[in-house]
């Protein structure tokens, strides 16, 4: 008896949770071969698996190594499925510009936030690390982002975050974007001091914060 669509999506989700990249690739190809909807496979398979992995992370069943392995599996599946998404099905997503501020190249926290935001339905533009303040602003304007997410691990580079906000204010476009900040030395007090819209202590909190900032449920 041929395998049903829902069963295949469940297997796809499991392959992400169990960090099995090659199986994820194989199942993603199967989705295409069988003519199933790629967007649905991403939602009910890959994203569902990553969401389950995120819950396991919050419950301290999974830790950073496991989460990174899951995300590798997810991205491997996405590489296969994404080209087959029909544009009209991809829907309208809230766009986030994310990056590590200038002078800092520690990006593991930023990567985790990116993964969790993507899993939760945000369209994330990842600028990478060591990003000048102006670049955040230019990109956010260009892609019409809703959120600018700034990360740093070092106290010596924290000021780059306030510089982004200063530029937004100078250009008179501060109200067009929500700015969220995070990273090892960052705190709510610092976020308040520089006039950021929010601070989150970890990746899961960052998703809840981003949802709140765009007016969605926490």
């Amino acid at each position: 008896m041929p395998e049903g669509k829902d069963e295949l999506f469940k297997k796809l989700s499991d392959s992400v949770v169990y960090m099995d990249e090659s199986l994820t690739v194989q199942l993603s190809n199967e989705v295409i071969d069988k003519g199933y909807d790629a967007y649905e496979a991403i939602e009910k398979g890959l994203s569902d698996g990553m969401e389950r992995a995120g819950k396991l992370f919050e419950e301290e069943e999974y830790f950073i190594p496991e989460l990174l392995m899951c995300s590798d599996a997810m991205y491997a599946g996405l590489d296969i499925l994404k080209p087959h998404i029909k544009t009209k099905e991809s829907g309208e997503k809230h766009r986030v510009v994310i990056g590590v501020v200038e002078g800092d190249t520690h990006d593991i926290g930023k990567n985790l936030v990116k993964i969790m935001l993507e899993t939760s339905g945000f369209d994330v533009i990842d600028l990478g690390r060591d990003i000048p303040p102006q670049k955040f602003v230019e990109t956010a304007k260009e892609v019409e982002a809703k959120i600018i997410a700034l990360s740093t691990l070092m106290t010596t580079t924290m000021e780059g975050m306030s510089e982004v906000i200063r530029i937004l204010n100078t250009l008179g476009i501060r109200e067009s974007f929500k700015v969220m900040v995070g990273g090892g030395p960052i705190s709510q007090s610092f976020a308040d001091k520089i006039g950021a819209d929010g601070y989150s202590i970890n990746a899961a909190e960052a998703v809840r914060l981003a949802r709140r900032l765009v007016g969605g449920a926490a």
Partner: protein
Amino acid sequence: MAFKYENDQLTSLERVSLALQFKKGDRVPAAPLFCGASHRVLGITYDKWSTDSELATKSLLASQELLGFDSFVTLVDLSVEAYDFGQEVIFPKNSTAYPNFNNQFIKNAGDYAKIKLVDPRKSKRMKSVIDICAGLSKAKGKEVAILGFLYGPLGVLSQIRGHKELFKDLIRHPDEVLGAIEIITQVLVEYAKAQIEAGAHSVCIDPLYSSPTVLSKSMWERFEGPYLKRIADAVRNAGGIVTVHNCGNGVYFEEVIKWADPVAISVAHPAYGCKTWEEHVEKWGSKVVTIGYSDPANTGLIMAQEEVVEDCRKQIELFVGNNAGYILSTGCEFPPNGNLLSAAAMVRAAATYGVYS
């Protein structure tokens, strides 16, 4: 001339030494992990401070004279050891040195075999830290506590491989990782001994991934626990005191104590399983000395000095009020770009509110 507050009766070294034995000296010691910030006291650039042991020593000595903290910590940056294993390191003029993450020395699993033994006493950057220990010891070793510093083997390897790839390799290529950890540990054992021989009273070991923010207990124990023990044993065998630093959230105290048996643990957050500092004090206050826990960024960059003093007062009252082993400190390095007067305010808080009756 030694820095003294009006009611100070002991030297900094005596004060810290007693605190590490759960004994009451004249007051709570204050040790705000004042390291990179010292370059500004001497007026040199950060890259000079990171690469010239003589200037770094002078900077730390000048800072101690100015601010009066009770302990030196010879944390230069977390790429010291990695550099000597072959990792390219970037030295910004006004910020902390860091590995070039675009050019990792270990680029794939096969490259773990490239990690070879090096002699820290003949290396460049580890030798520099050994020299700082020697310089501080010569100048102030009888008056001020000197905590040497080394990054744990897994931390060192993460600087050489890159954090993300190393964490995945713990699952994908554990044997290759353990092979490199073994070599790094042998070098760190010698490095720890050399710091004590140079005059450090303690070596503060940083097993940064021993918390749930990064690894599970079992994975941390497998990849770092036994190696940490060998380094800690080497410190003790050389006549030094073992201390541990980890600024991660929820440090696995039980496991860290099992493997390193330190007299003190420097932290930024309550231990694993403790939701509050009150719980932390109740569970660990009589078992191991806590070094902490002012938030470095808030202390150095945000709070006014009176707010710093007030924050410290609350910590002192909690720990001293519960007879818990305690040294007042920042939970991680005092911000290199932080307000120097805020570090002084921490010392003032200890001298004002930490006096034992």
